[in-house]
């Protein structure tokens, strides 16, 4: 009986290979990020011609009129206010050694969120804002925060708030390692994973505006601009790390560790293709 099932699986797999094996004009393997970003933008603006480019950063609210109305009302008194205030307090408080977060960041850490992630050419890796914050703590003798809990969310909420309105400005230096990180992120985004066999693209490219259970799906364009978010489902704030790991679990894939290379590269790719769109964080979501 099991063999019959195995045979069926094998047949399905072969069928998939047969169907999937025809490559469509296989592009050269050197990525062209500016071309990718333009194609990405065009795909979504053509799919949703009534949505202004900058409004894509509001995710599901730009996909559904009723949600949009409720969200506008809530923004008068947003649920992330407490987190921003907590973040501001934390950010201003010096470490035990007398230094503070301001010493780790350009412009004292104010109005710089739109430049993250960046590619660190000395280290040869992508540095996200969350990672930079914890490194700042460790370099100054403080224990790192969990990437998925309230403290990191509060700090990034405050920093996002100081950058509101500023367009994403992610740079890819002329360095093959940076291009590789970008390409890794892109590949992660489109790769199916988990028992449910979803990729990020399955929901956020193929089905934005449609529902998954009771939620309206956000488009991938501008999807990180509102982070971190107060999510009603979580009854609290969540970081990019929290969202990436919980997404994996939801499609029955074991999540990697927050800030593993794959996630950093994914954030790099997603942020880059949203260059030019304004930071709207911190945000609120259903």
């Amino acid at each position, binding site marked *: 009986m099991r063999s019959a099932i195995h045979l069926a699986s094998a047949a399905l797999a072969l069928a998939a290979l047969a169907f999937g094996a025809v490559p469509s004009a296989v592009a050269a393997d050197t990525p062209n990020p500016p071309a990718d970003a333009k194609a990405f933008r065009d795909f979504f603006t053509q799919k949703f011609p009534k949505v202004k480019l900058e409004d894509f950063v509001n995710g599901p609210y730009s996909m559904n009129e009723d949600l949009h109305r409720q969200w506008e009302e809530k923004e*008068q008194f947003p*649920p992330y206010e407490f987190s921003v205030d907590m973040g501001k307090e934390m950010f201003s408080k010096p470490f035990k050694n007398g230094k503070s977060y301001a010493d780790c960041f350009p412009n004292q850490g104010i109005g710089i969120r739109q430049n993250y992630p960046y590619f660190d050419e000395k280290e040869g890796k992508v540095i996200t804002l969350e990672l930079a914050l914890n490194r700042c703590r460790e370099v100054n003798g403080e224990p790192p925060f969990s990437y998925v809990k309230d403290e990191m969310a509060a700090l990034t909420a405050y920093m996002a708030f100081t950058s509101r309105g500023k367009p994403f400005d992610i740079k890819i230096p002329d360095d093959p390692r940076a291009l590789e990180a970008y390409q890794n992120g892109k590949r992660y985004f489109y790769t199916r994973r988990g028992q449910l066999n979803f990729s990020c693209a399955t929901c956020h490219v193929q089905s934005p505006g449609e529902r998954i259970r009771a939620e309206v799906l956000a488009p991938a364009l501008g999807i990180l601009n509102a982070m971190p978010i107060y999510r009603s489902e979580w009854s609290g704030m969540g970081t990019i790390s929290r969202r990436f790991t919980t997404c994996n679990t939801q499609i029955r894939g074991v999540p990697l560790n927050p800030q593993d290379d794959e996630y950093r590269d994914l954030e790099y790719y997603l942020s880059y293709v949203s260059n030019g769109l304004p930071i709207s964080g911190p945000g609120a979501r259903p």
Partner: protein
Amino acid sequence: MASTIRVRATSSGETTEVQALIQHPMDSGFVKDAKGEIIPPHFIQQLTFEYDGKSVFVADWGGGVSKDPYVKFSFKGGKKGDDLKISWVDNKGATDTTTAKIQ
């Protein structure tokens, strides 16, 4: 520590619209923590808005209201510059109070 109550009251014509966001865990007492133990009930039981010595809005809450509750309502009357007093009491006997000026 900052107040747990954020409030904005705006008067236009005969009506005053009030919005309030209150920081409170609002634990129902039915949820278990990561260790499998019940998180004890901890929620606001009564929330009162007072204007000119009279209650204009009173809420009797239980565990069914979510964390960090948001309230919005309107009442007849209220002038710019007048005081609006907000206070709550929870099931542990804790309270908080704040006064805001109607804009």
